[in-house]
């Protein structure tokens, strides 16, 4: 065993020596725990229901916005505060454009149905936060993030921006409505 020394002193002689068993055991336990931490991620891709993979591709911001407008024209059922409300059929691709400082359109989805939700931005980075569920995604200009979503409960949700996008950032709130399977809207106007 080398003589004792502190971290401020150069170790004398050969310091490449075996560790005490107690230290070796801790390193082993820590290593095993690290493998568990790691394994959970690929495992969740196979067994879990929430993954941030989705469809990822580059897109011109203006092209994405045009696609959103076509989508609105196709399925619009009304409007709230000047923002169109859109009710796409189950299984369809739905488009949500973020721009300073607005989310457009307002989506009306059905409980239990699956949709592909496309997120992108017309200008700067924005943050998609579905309130009060607390589901978060980054919305990056020039990129189409297509996520399969399946709402599990009806309700009147909010989409708030949680990436700083300019001085009006805190006013950027959108709306997402989920109606129950029998077609009745759980709530019409704003909460």
């Amino acid at each position, binding site marked *: 065993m080398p003589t004792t020394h502190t971290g401020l002193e150069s170790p004398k002689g050969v310091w*490449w020596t075996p560790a005490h068993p*107690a230290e070796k055991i801790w390193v082993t336990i820590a290593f095993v725990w690290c493998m568990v931490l790691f394994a*959970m991620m690929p495992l969740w891709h196979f067994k879990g229901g929430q*993954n941030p993979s989705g469809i990822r591709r580059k897109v011109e911001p203006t092209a994405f916005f045009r696609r959103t407008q076509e989508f609105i024209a196709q399925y619009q059922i009304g409007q709230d505060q000047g923002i169109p409300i859109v009710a796409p059929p189950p299984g369809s691709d739905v488009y949500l454009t973020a721009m300073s400082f607005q989310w457009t359109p307002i989506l009306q989805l059905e409980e239990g149905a699956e949709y592909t939700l496309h997120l992108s931005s017309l200008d700067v980075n924005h943050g998609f936060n579905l309130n009060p569920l607390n589901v978060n*995604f980054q919305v990056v200009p020039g990129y189409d993030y297509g996520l399969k979503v399946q709402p599990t409960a009806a309700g009147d949700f909010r989409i708030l921006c949680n990436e700083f996008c300019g001085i009006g*950032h805190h006013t950027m709130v959108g709306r997402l409505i989920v109606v129950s399977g029998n077609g009745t809207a759980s709530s019409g106007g704003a909460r």
Partner: protein
Amino acid sequence: MTTTDFRTCGSTGLKVHGPAEALIKANAVVSVVALLIGAVGAVLLVLTRWQAVHLLSAPWYYRILGVHGMSMLIFFIIFFEMAVLYFASTVVINARQVMPKLGWASFGLMVIGAVMVEVMMWTGKADVLFTSYVPLRADPLFYLGVILFAVGALIVTSMFFANLVVAKREKRYQGSVPLVTFGAVAAAIIAIITLLHGAAIYIPTFLWSLGLMEVDAQIYRLIWWGLGHSSQQINVAAMVAIWYMLGALTVGAVVVNEKISRLAFVLYILFISMASAHHLLVDPGLGPTWKIVNTSYFMYMAVLASMIHGFTVPAGMELGQRLRGFTSGLFEWLRKAPWGDPGFSSLVFSVVVFGFVGGITGVTIGTEQINIIVHNTLRVPGHFHATVVSGTAMAFMGATYYLIPLIFRKRVAFWGLAKIQPYLFALGMLIFTMSMTFAGSFGVPRRHWDITFSQAPFGIEFSPAVDLLLGFVALGGLLAATGAFIFVAIAVKSVFFGDPLGEITHGTAMVGVPAGLTHPPVHSSNVDELNAELHQPGRGWRLGPAPGTVVLVGVFLLAFVVYFFVNWKVLSFVWKIG
């Protein structure tokens, strides 16, 4: 170079090179100035997020948020790290400072860069926050300021390596460098990687701000975080090096096993810079394989390193104390520790809060899927204030209580306050980080002026618990800021108006001198015999020479496992997404 440039330190016997000492002083002083600016910002920010007070207007909230981030995470921390690099490559190994004039030139460059950035931010020409995500645009001088600062830091880091090479050639030390210096080497290598990322992103962004080229928003995020997160990993390595240093100075901590501790630093160098991925887990530009490999530092090898240091640092302290004769039971070594020495209390709080709050939350929220319920909520600043403030800043403060007498040769001013400062700061940060983390679990966004959404088209009401938690964020923030102001007052008074410190008399407590210097932690005279006995394989239920530490890391691991799996459970409740 003449030998007259050196003085021998009366208390440690280390040889201190004059030009190195001057550079350490200058960098430390500017660092404290940046801390003061950042702490004033912190007070304004917590008083705004506390909705009952809501102090600042929206433009000033975002502006001050940017100022707070740059002043603290970049200027305070990096100037202090420059001082650490000078210290570890000269004083610790009795070596001289090479090319001191270049050191002053880099210092000048860094100060000019920092002033440019501060002026641009305060005058509203760079309302882009700390991350300055393209295509949010700031004045070109903002980006130029960052570049000048980074170039200066890069030169200092290179000089650190030059110092080591010259010291080796001049045979200033025998054998390998001490572990503290080895840790600083790790920090310096990570710094080079980090600063190169900085150049790779800020130079194109500077050109973009002049209209000379395009920068992709996602590529910016990828490379910027190679700077943004890796710079926090310089802090981790520097902080761990300081843990080993403060352990040695305060309780005579020994290196339990050089091989294990050094391998852990090597793991940092190899893997820790991959953490850029932590910020990109719910981004559209990167695939799951890239995310999993990078966010886990290639299968959590950097986490393994931290878990090793989390064992060897307290084990070294425990063994050091046991070798001084505090051998009874599991925890006599802790009970009889110098809790009135601010260097020691800072060390303990830094290790505990960094590990239990910062470390556990960091690994958990940096998990690919769990990040869905975390990204851009208050859980993120809750995490990194536990690492970089309660961990790194706390360790740097503890080190300062020793630098003042050792380098500045002054008594620590306001000694009574200095003894309680670590307690105040650590308690404040603990309340702050825990409250922020819980508020974030409700989905409360970070970097947000108004969560009552008074000017938004649709209202949102958070749980009433959120109001209470944000009140606690303010309370903790104000306590910690008070601790920071006390620290600044102590540092400024000691350095500029402090009582010069003559000889330190061993064995008598002196006002303004930490116990580790007046009562150096000397091991028992039969240290080797005692050490061999403590290392007996079968001793004390086979828990080894540091059984108390084994119990503590067991509690840590349990907390880690519970927190990690609770988060998976919470994630499983949200919508199916993929």
